[in-house]
Structure formats: C-alpha cells, structure tokens
C-alpha cells in the first residue's frame, strides 16, 4: 500500500527531527554565552559538563515527556468525547491538578510524591465533574455542553487556587503556588523526573498500546458495543492513563496550555484520523514543540519566561491559523 509507506516515511522524518532537536537543545542556553554553547566545551569545562548533565538534560527530557503527555492526553480526550475542541486544560484536568498540588503545598507538605498523588486525584476529579455536569445539562449539543461544564469546573478550581494563594505564606508557599499557574520547568532535577516517570510512562504506555482501539471507542456507544468493546470500561482505562500522565507532568511543570489542543489537530492534518498513527504522531510532534518552547523559555531572556506563556502564544496563533484556513475541515 503506497499510503502506508508514505506514513512510515513521515514517521522516520518526525523521529529524526525529534532526536536532532533533543541533541541540539542540550547546547542551547545562557551559559557560557547566550543561546549557544559549543559542544567542545563538554570536554574542556567541568562546570559546563555538570550543567548539561545535572540541569539541562533532565529539563529537556521532562519537556519531551510533557509534550508527549499533554498531546497524547489531548488526542485521547478529543476522540473519547468525540469533540475536536477539548484538551486537558478545558476539562478541569489541568486546573484540578494545580489545585491538588497547591492543596498539598499548603496543608500536607510539598514532598513530590504527595504532591503528585494529590494532583492526579484532583485532576481525575476535575474530569469526572466536567463529564457528569455535561451529562446533566439540558441544552446545547454534547460538544458545547462539555466545553461549558469544563469551563465552569476549571473556574471553580482556579477560584480555589486563588483562595489558597491568598492564604499561602507569601515567602515560602506563594512563589511555589504561583509557579503552577504559569507553568515552567525551571528547577527540574533528575530526582523529580524520577518521581513522575512511573505515572507518565504507565499512562503513555496504556494510550500507546490501545491506540487502534481508541478509534472504536470514538464511535457511538451502540456501534462500539456491537464491535465487541466494553465502551465504559475501556474508555475509563484510557482516560485514567491519559489523565495520570497529564497530572504527573502538571505536578512538576504547572499548567501548560494549548499543546494538548493544537498538537492532535496538526497530527490529524498530517497523518489522518486513524489513532493508530495520530497517537504516536501527537506524542512526537508534542515533544518537538514543547522542547522548542522550553528552549525559548530558558534562553531567550536573561530571566526565565514561564513556559505556559510561550505555549499559549504559539498555540493560540496556530489555532487561529487552523480555524481560519479554508483547507482545514473541522466538524463540530
């Protein structure tokens, strides 16, 4: 089939791009001079070596995982809710995760493991709330109801976040909480990366392995059932996978928007609707995009720019372009 060999070529291209960007990213930064460090410095300069190994490498890898998780979760949510306009941030997942993390900073203690579990629990709760509210709403299409209830739930959680900011100790806790709202990966260490890895890997693995099945679960209940699936159980499994990866990454990176919305659209545009290809494509494109955004965040200015601001800027512009472009069909 010519069609499938074309897709294989595209995947190779995407994979090599990703690899290239990962390697290049290690040398991007503000040491010793802004923007670029010569690779030969790795041999000559002890400080450069330590910087790359202890700080840049875990950070670049986390950015990669972040892009993969957010994009995969976005693709899963869009397909399961049969709505091309949803992303983790629209359904109370990100705000829920941030709420859980802030709650744990304030009252339980900010040990990474506690924070992550709390973030995951509240992220799931956010999704559950958005979904059940949407089911109870009386008016409007399913797509519209889901977005409305997602906005409401996200607003509730961000109100909660606001209250906690107000209550937080301005010197020790407030900076940490504010960081959630803007999103960013400064201060990433191998230790933190190690803590989130199990959640992220298990979540991504579930999504990746069930990727063809996801197609079936995007059909109506009766069709999915007639094809031998257990729609409720399998959809829940995929959602838990997608949300736990997102929540874990949110627990260390804060709220980073738009990636989860825009990347699945780009992936579908290139690879078609079949999730067998759009899931790995979303993961790779998301990885490339987030690593690039994080490179900008940490090297563009002498001070760090919050990652969430950069992804919002790029994501919103890309989204507008997608919406206005006459060549792209969106059916809502």
């Amino acid at each position, binding site marked *: 089939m010519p*069609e499938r060999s074309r897709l294989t070529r595209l995947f190779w291209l995407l994979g090599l791009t990703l690899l290239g960007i990962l390697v290049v990213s290690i040398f991007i930064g503000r040491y010793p001079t802004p923007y670029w460090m010569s690779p030969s410095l790795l041999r000559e300069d002890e400080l450069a070596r330590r910087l790359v190994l202890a700080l840049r490498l875990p950070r670049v890898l986390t950015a990669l995982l972040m892009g993969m998780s957010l994009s995969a979760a976005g693709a899963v949510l869009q397909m399961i809710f049969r709505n091309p306009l949803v992303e983790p941030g629209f359904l109370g997942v990100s705000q829920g995760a941030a709420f859980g993390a802030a709650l744990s900073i304030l009252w339980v203690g900010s040990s990474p493991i506690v924070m992550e579990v709390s973030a995951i629990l509240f992220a799931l709760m956010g999704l559950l709330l958005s979904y059940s509210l949407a089911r109870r709403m009386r008016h409007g299409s399913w797509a519209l109801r889901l977005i409305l209830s997602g906005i409401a739930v996200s607003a509730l959680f961000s109100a909660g976040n606001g209250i906690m900011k107000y209550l937080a100790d301005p010197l020790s806790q407030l900076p940490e909480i504010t960081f959630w709202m803007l999103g960013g990966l400064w201060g990433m260490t191998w230790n933190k990366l190690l803590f989130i890895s199990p959640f992220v890997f298990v979540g991504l693995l579930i999504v990746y392995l*069930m990727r063809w099945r996801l197609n079936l679960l*995007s*059909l109506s209940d009766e069709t999915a*059932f*007639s094809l031998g699936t257990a729609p409720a159980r399998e959809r829940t499994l995929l959602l838990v996978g997608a949300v736990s990866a997102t929540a874990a990454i949110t627990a260390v990176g804060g709220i980073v928007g738009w990636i989860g919305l825009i990347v699945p659209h780009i992936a579908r545009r290139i690879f078609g609707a079949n999730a067998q290809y759009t899931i790995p494509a979303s993961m790779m494109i998301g990885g490339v995009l987030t690593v690039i955004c994080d490179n900008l965040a940490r090297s563009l200015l002498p001070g760090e720019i919050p990652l969430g601001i950069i992804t919002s800027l790029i994501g919103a512009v890309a989204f507008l372009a997608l919406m206005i472009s006459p060549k792209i069909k969106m059916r809502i």
Partner: protein
Amino acid sequence: MNTSGIISLSNLTFSYDADLQNAISDLSLEIPAGSIAAILGPNGAGKSTLLHIILGMLAPQGGQILLDGKNLSTYSRREMSRLVGLVPQIEHIPFEFSVMEYILLGRAPYLGILQMPAEEDYQTVSEILRTLKLTHLAHRAVLDLSGGERQMVLMARALAQQPRILLLDEPTSHLDLSNKGHILRILRDLAEQGVTVIFTTHDPYTAVLSAQYLILMRDGNILDSGPIEQILKADKLTSTYGVPVRVVKVNGHSVILLDQTLT
C-alpha cells in the same frame, strides 16, 4: 447451516423503567437462518429497543433469547461481536476517517485489545469493498460521502465482522429509490448466503419488498409477528399506524396505500 431457527425469542419482556408499562411484553418469535425479518412500526414504537436487546446491549427482564441454539447471555463479548453486526441509524463520525480506515474497524472482533489490523484484515476489507462495488471510495473521507454511499460504508463496516446475524436500524429511511433498491438487493444476497437479517423500518413497502418475516410494533408493544403473508393485512397495519390502510396487489406485489382522502 442448520435449519433450526438461528434467532429464537421466547416470552421476552423488557422495560426501561420498572414503574412504566413494559416496552416489550411477552414476545415470542422464531427467525430461521438466512431469512429477512422486518420490524415495522411508526416512529417511536420501540423498534430500536428490540434491536438493542438482540444485540445484547439491553438485558430483558424476562424470557430468553437463543442465538444459534445458545442463550445470548452465555456468549462472551468477543463471540457476540463475531456473530452479530449492527448498522446503526445514524453514525456520527466526528473525525475524517478514510473509508478504508473506517471499515477496518469492523475487524475488531478478530483482534486483541492491543492488536493492530494486519495484512489479512486489509485483504478482507478490500474483498468486501469489491463485493459491494465500493473500491473507488477506499481513500475518500467518510464525511465527504453522499447519503447512499455512506449507508453502504456503514454496512461494509458491519460486514467486515463477518457476522451471521446482521441488524440494521432504518437502513433505507433517508435514501432515494435507487439507493434503497441497492441496499435491499444486498440484504437479499446476504440472506441467500445464510446471514439472518433483521431491520427496522417505518415504511411498510420497504418491508414488503424484502422481508419474509414481519414484527409489527406500536407504542412499545408487539402487535403481531410471523411470516409476512399472514401479517401483512389491512386491519393489522391499520392498528399499527392508527390510520386506515389498504393492501393492494399491483403486478403481484403488495402495495400499501393510505385509505383516506385529504380534504
């Protein structure tokens, strides 16, 4: 294939809500393998409900369903999906699947939960496309198809399951005459190959054209059921639709007419 009824319903009772009256009460019917049965009735008569019960999606409160001589509840999900295919009335497909990708989804009953379709599955689908004369559509997006083409593609997806029982919910309701004829011809061919076909329709003529068995439904109740020549009677259709109806023979075909003048 054995000649005993592949689908046998006995004393079937179902209601959505225990307080309400039964949506279906005491339905018994035997549909032999390789025949076509039409569930006929006005809109909202509960026809789809009956299909969903035979699909195993809704569990009846009383009575039993035997498929191939075996109780429906003893089939696993996978076995069921290999035995029974469904063509829903409307399939809202939110993403731009190509016709090939969409029909491949019908191979799910033969794939594990983590498996991807393999070369054989592509071949099976290509064959179905050839049989249904849809090969030229293989790489088009399902969303871009006309109503008739789309109905054919939905059917092809169900046929990729290689089911022995095919359920269709209003398969011809929004098709023009030529597409309607096309679909009904395919159903007849399937029946000749031994597939048992059950479809719902609100149009008596569609039932007359193709079915050997008829189930009349109104307000969630089965009014009558059996071989079509016993059921297709003016008085029975009149009570099904609540308007006077006449059955007339034209060139050996039964034609159903509304027996009233609009003044």
